[in-house]
Each structure stands twice: as C-alpha cells, then as structure tokens.
C-alpha cells in the first residue's frame, strides 16, 4: 500500500500542493484528475522522490521516500509527463541503461528488456535511435522503462499522450492488466479513459483535494443534478406548463423547436429521476400529448469533474476559526467578566 500523508509543496511563497492525503491500495488503479496547474505533476514528482516536499510523508510499501529513498524507489516505476529518453541512444541501449540504474542484475537484464519491449510492442524499433522515433513510440519507450524490473508501484503521468487510437486502446489494456499485482497511480485529461481504467479517483484543484471516491459513488453523490430530455408533439405552451407543474422538476433548461409541432425540452430534476419521469409521462399522456422520446441523462465523471472544479472551496467561518484559537482559560475569563458586567447592570 502507498500512503500519502499531509503532502505540501511551496515554491517560494506560492503553495502548489496543500496538505493532501490519500492512499493507493494494493491491486488498485487510482486516477489522479485535475485541470492544468492543479498540482498533479508536482504531486507525482514528490511521490516519485524527484521533488522534495515542503511537508508531509510518502510511504511506499512501508519505506519512507525521504528517509529510505533507495528502498522506496526500488519498488517504483515512473513515467513522467515528458518521456525521459535520450535521443542519441538506441532503444535497447536506453532500456539497458535504465535497467542498470534500477539495479536489475546483469544476468536478467536481457530477458527483462525483451519482456517490457513485448508488453509495449516496441520490438520493431529496438535498434533505432530514439531521436528518429515518432512521439507515440517515444512515449511507449518511456513507459517500457517504468515497467523495467516489474516494480509493484507504478506512477503514470498522462501515459496515452501522443499515441494513436489503436495504441491508446492497447496501452489502456496494459494498464488494466497491471492491476492484477501492482498498484498504479494514473493521471489523465481524458475523463472517459479514467472512467474506463480506474477503480477510484482523486480530484485535485489548485493544490487542494476536491474529492476521493469510486467513480460510481461520485456519480451518485452528484445525482441531484440529473437532467431529463423529452421530445414531444403538441402545443409548446401546454407542454411547458405541464412540465413546470410536475413535482420534482426544478426548471426548464432549454426548448428546441424541431418543426411540425415537435419540441425537445431539457429540464433539470430535483429528486428521484425514475419517479419524476413516470409522473411526467402520466401527465402528458392524460393531456393527449404524444411522447416521441424521453430519457434521463445521468451525471458522468465529466459533469462531476466540472462541478467539483468550479465549486469554491468551503472555508471555515471567522467565528469558527476564532473559537479554535481562543484558549480555554481566556474564554472562562471572558465568561467571568461577562458575569461581572451582568451583576453590575443588575445593581
């Protein structure tokens, strides 16, 4: 298990990561999401031991990355945002160098290099100079070095960037297959990819964690913002008034005229989607309005992500903060003085 506790990073006076804590369980793929500049790469660099942290602790299978970096890093493979490759080296030379710095025994290196090249399907370019490879191949070579030595903890910072659609599918399959006996932290801008690959997600913005949960839980937590689409044939004003008067409908978001008295309504719901949909259908049928299409749009990771990112951080009230810092003695003294004042007023 990987534990990240109260991780904080300051660049001068600028706070890039603010006291974040989470864990990555064994056999789990954890998605790490956030907009550009959220602190994702900084966090990943700190977990990988590349950037020192201002405060906090990262423990990789019981080894502290600061106190016992060698042991911690021996169990770790890292693919940073820009694949760390040497253009003047051939693919096999590069992987052999990486195997060397990862302390893979000399006798096992050839076999290990062949294994990762086969996993990433880069055998056909093994004799080529990295500078002559396409972006996709460079990315895969970078990924291959992260898997060298079969580390149990793998950090992947946008691993599918620069790959063509076929390669993306293959790499996703590979990441999913890693789950069997690894723990993986995986960042991506492609939310559908995260939904497909990850078990849980951490959403981060401006250095603060906004949510940590499974995708299903996040989607259900935000189910209050469900919207319903309905296409009907009938009088627009009549349909609108039926929709507005139905219980559980929050507001009509849009009405599209599709011609021949056919209208598409998008409405926001406030309650159980199935019940509201049934009620609305009954009302429309009672009023002899022909329903051509009706469906509820469930919140997906994308809508959850947008909502969480745009939601302002909840700050403690000033009075709450003051309560926390006023010492007990002082507060009892205040109580006494208040009591004295009361007595004076009584007199």
């Amino acid at each position, binding site marked *: 298990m990987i534990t990240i506790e109260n991780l904080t990073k300051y660049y001068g006076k600028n706070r890039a990561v603010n006291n974040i804590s989470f864990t990555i369980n064994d056999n789990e793929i954890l998605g790490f999401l956030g907009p550009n500049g959220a602190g994702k790469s900084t966090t990943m*660099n700190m977990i990988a031991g590349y950037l020192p942290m201002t405060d906090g602790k990262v423990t990789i299978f019981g080894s502290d990355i600061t106190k016992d970096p060698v042991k911690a890093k021996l169990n770790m493979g890292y693919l940073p945002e820009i694949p*760390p490759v040497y253009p003047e080296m051939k693919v096999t030379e590069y992987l052999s160098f990486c195997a060397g710095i990862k302390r893979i025994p000399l006798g096992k290196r050839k076999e290990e290099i062949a294994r990762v090249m086969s996993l990433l399907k880069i055998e056909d370019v093994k004799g080529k100079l990295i500078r002559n490879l396409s972006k996709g191949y460079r990315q895969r070579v970078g990924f291959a070095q992260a898997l060298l030595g079969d580390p149990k903890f793998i950090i992947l910072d946008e691993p599918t960037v620069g790959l063509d659609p076929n390669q993306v599918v293959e790499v996703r399959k590979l990441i999913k297959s890693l789950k069997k006996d690894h723990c993986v932290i995986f960042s991506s801008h492609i939310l559908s990819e995260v939904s497909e690959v990850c078990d849980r997600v951490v959403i981060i913005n401006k250095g603060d964690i906004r949510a940590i949960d499974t995708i299903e839980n996040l989607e259900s937590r935000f189910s209050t913002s469900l919207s319903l689409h309905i296409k009907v044939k009938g009088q627009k004003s009549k349909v609108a008034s039926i929709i507005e008067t139905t219980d559980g409908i929050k507001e009509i978001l849009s009405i599209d005229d599709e011609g021949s008295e056919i209208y598409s309504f998008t409405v926001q719901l406030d309650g159980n989607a199935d019940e509201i949909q049934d009620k609305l259908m009954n009302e429309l049928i009672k009023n002899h309005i022909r329903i051509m299409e009706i469906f509820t749009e469930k919140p997906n990771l994308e809508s959850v992500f947008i909502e969480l990112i745009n939601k302002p951080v909840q700050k403690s009230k000033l009075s709450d903060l003051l309560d926390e810092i006023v010492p007990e003695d002082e507060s009892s003294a205040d109580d006494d003085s208040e009591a004295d004042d009361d007595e004076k007023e009584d007199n």
Partner: protein
Amino acid sequence: MFSIYKKELQSFFYTPFAYALTALFMLLFTYMFASPIAKLESTNTLMFSFTEIFYDIIMFFIFLIPIITMRTFADERKLGTEVLLMSSPLNVAKIVLGKFFANVTVFLFMIAGSALFPIITEMNGEVVVSQLICAYIGFFSWGTMFIALGMLISSFTESAIIAAIIGEFVMFVDLFLDDISRSAFVSQYPKLQSLLTAFAAQPRFAYFSQGFIRLSDLVFFASAIIVLLCWTYISIERRRWNRG
C-alpha cells in the same frame, strides 16, 4: 554509478563529439611539436621540452574543457531526463561521480594521443622520461580540476551553450589569476593578492612542467576537485528544492 559512467561515455563516443575534440587537441599538439622542427635552420642537435608544449597548450586547452563538460547536467535538464535519474535508486553523489569519471576518461583519451610524440622522439633521439611524467601528472591534475569546475557551471543552467561560455570565461580568468595578482592595482592590497595567488592554478602547473612534484600542489588540485564536486552536488539538490 557504473551505468551512469557507461552512458556518459556512450554519449561521447557514439557521436563524433569526442573524436572531433581529440582531433582538435592533436592538431594543436602537432603544431606545437612541429613548429620548432620547422624553424630548425642548421643540422645542430634540436633540444626542446615536451613540458613547454604542455605549458603552451593550456592556453588553447581551456577552450576544449568546457566543451567536454557543458552538456553534463544542462542537457539532462533540457531533455527532461533528470527526472529519470532522480527518481531512480541512484543518489545524487553517485550521479555526480559517474559523470565526473566519464568526463575524466574522455580527457584521458584526448591526452593519450599526445603520447605518440614522445614515442616518436624516443625512437629518433632521447626523452627525459621523469620530466615528461611530471608534465603529464600536472596536466592531468589541472585538466581534472577544470572538468570539476565545468561540471559545476553546467549544473547551474539548462543551456549547454551558456554553460560553455561561462566555463570559458571562468577558466580564462583562472589562467590569468597569477598575472592579475601581480598587477599594480592588486599589489596595493596584500590580502587580496595572497588570496588570488592561493587560488591560481597556473603557477602550480608551472612547477610540474619544470619537473617538480610538490605535495602542496597535489593537495591543492585534489582539494579543489573535491570542493567543486561537493558544490555541484549541493547545486543539484538546491535546484531540486527550488524547482518551480
């Protein structure tokens, strides 16, 4: 550490880089060696000193050392490969030492070619071997110290070209530090003068070239190398902490 050493050597020798530098060095050495022979007017016995050749060649050599060292750390940062090294089980000290020894090996490769001239001379005349060895030890010590200095400068920047230019300048100043310390202006300040004299490498090399091996000079070069390598280590760690 050996993996870093090997990779650095590969990056020198898999490109025309090391060969071009060695060819340039040999060209300079050949010129220095051949010019007194070309100037010979009679059939008298020609006497010349290899140590003088080394002494004269230093002036040109300060332009070659920063070219060896300029990419050492600057390129790692520029290519984004620094993260690979720092997230590996290697520690920074091993990275610095691996790169240092690789640069020293390239330097040795360059000066090894110059041994050809004493060998040819020995075949046709006589060489004072002890003095020649002294000159080689002095030249190697001096060059190794400047390699450590070049690596330090490379750790300050992301641009290999800027590292080379600053390196040339600093080494040029060091070469003339003794002359500067003896100038009329500096003479007015005895403390400054003694400080500059203490840091000047050139007069120490002069002793080697005259066939003297002084323990104080060896200690000077060794301690300068250690200080510069430690400074490089601190510079890399400091950049990691301040990296934005």
